[in-house]
């Protein structure tokens, strides 16, 4: 009850902030439309809708780290969390209260992205449901990164630093170019970080490639567990 109550408050805060709508929905949609039109005139395999759509879906999720970081740092600065820390709410109520609304926004983002992609030629198929589920797991990763940033940064800094996470996830995920073309070191960096595996897991889920979905998803789950532990420790420290 306490978790859902706090999640409900966070959802309202998020959807009533125009920044959420601009960055979660409008910006990724613009990129999808732009790249699809470019691909129609200059066909490139990387920007075919089957490859572009999972990339844009994943890129859209990276903004969840920014929303979460700003939400938490703002709550800290306005003493809203100070008030709540003196109540009977526990760290788990706060953490899941931040995770749940952002995952919901992540699912809506992915659904909108896939719906638009269908208009640009992506095959409407049942496997897209699995891809939405994979996206939901990826969104937990970005939220947990956002919690870590929100706990250690000021409200002003959290927006800037989380945009670095967004840039990293864009450049190291193979959305905009094939990482194999760049070279060994770059490719290895991409492969040990979770972002590339996130895009590959969504692609594999759409293609019903179960083994590739699971192997890539394990990277995401592993990193999510690490960031969840760190974010819980940081949040508990803030509570004291």
């Amino acid at each position, binding site marked *: *009850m*306490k978790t859902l*109550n*706090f999640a*409900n*408050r966070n959802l*309202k*805060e998020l959807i*009533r*902030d125009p920044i959420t709508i601009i960055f979660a929905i409008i910006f990724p949609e613009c990129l999808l439309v732009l790249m699809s039109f470019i691909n129609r005139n200059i066909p490139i395999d990387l920007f075919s809708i089957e490859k572009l759509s999972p990339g844009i879906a994943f890129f859209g999720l990276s903004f969840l780290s920014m929303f979460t970081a700003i939400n938490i740092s703002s709550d800290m600065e*306005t*003493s*809203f969390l*100070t*008030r*709540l*820390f*003196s*109540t*009977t*709410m526990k760290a788990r109520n706060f953490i899941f209260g931040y995770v749940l609304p952002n995952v919901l926004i992540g699912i809506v983002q992915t659904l909108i992205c896939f719906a638009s992609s269908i208009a640009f030629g992506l095959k409407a198929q049942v496997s897209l449901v699995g891809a939405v589920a994979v996206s939901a797991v990826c969104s937990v990763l970005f939220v947990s990164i956002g919690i870590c940033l929100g706990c250690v940064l000021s409200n002003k800094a959290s927006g800037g630093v989380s945009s670095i996470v967004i840039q990293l996830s864009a450049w190291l995920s193979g959305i905009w170019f094939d990482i194999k073309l760049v070279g060994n070191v770059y490719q290895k960096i991409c492969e040990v970080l979770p972002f590339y595996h996130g895009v590959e897991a969504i692609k594999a889920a759409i293609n019903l490639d179960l083994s590739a979905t699971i192997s890539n998803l394990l990277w995401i789950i592993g990193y999510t567990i690490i960031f969840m532990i760190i974010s819980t420790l940081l949040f508990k420290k803030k509570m*004291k």
Partner: protein
Amino acid sequence: MKAIKCENLTKKFKNINAVDGLNFEVEEGELFSLLGTNGAGKSTTIKMLCGLLKPTSGDAKIFDESILKEEFKKFVAVSPQETAVAKNLTVKENLLFMAKIYFDKTKAEEKTKEIIKEFSLEKVENQRAKTLSGGYQRRLSIAMAVISEPKLLFLDEPTLGLDVISMHELWDTITNLKKKSTIILTTHYMKEAEKLSDKIAIMKNGKIIALGTADELIKLSRKSDFEEAFIEISKENGGDIR
């Protein structure tokens, strides 16, 4: 019954004793003010008493529950110095959110209606908190603390930055709250402390240097008004009228 009983309550930050072995008691139903210059240890004391900071040593009992355990939190609520409201939620949503932490849905809705009436927030109940005036925001902030029906309420500089009309309105609100809760108030406005408090403690360097009613503290300092008495006591070592 004792609302608060401090037993050698101490907080050290590295080598600095922010709060240095406090021993004082607050009776149930009292409005108790903590005064002191900046850095005297008021905020640290309050943070420990509402569970936001762990003491380095010593303890305090809130209605017989130790602050070293979690159980005492059911008795307390805090209205922080900064206006602590959810800015994109309406007044009603803010209150309902706080009420749902403590009560089921039906009781939370009842309490929300009740508090909106009690704090005269009807006019702005559907307005988002960020669009409220400073006075209304502060009133909402206190209403959010009161909605849980706390036995012990901490008000940290509740009238800071308010205009004189809003300040007087809030004083009336606080006076009414005295009937329901024991209140611990910190303020830099001497007139506010003198008008509202049953007892006043003056802190300096993490210690209570004087404690008594406003009249007793004036008498102790041999000054004619409370503000002068506070300055005199703070400059010297004060005195204890306990």
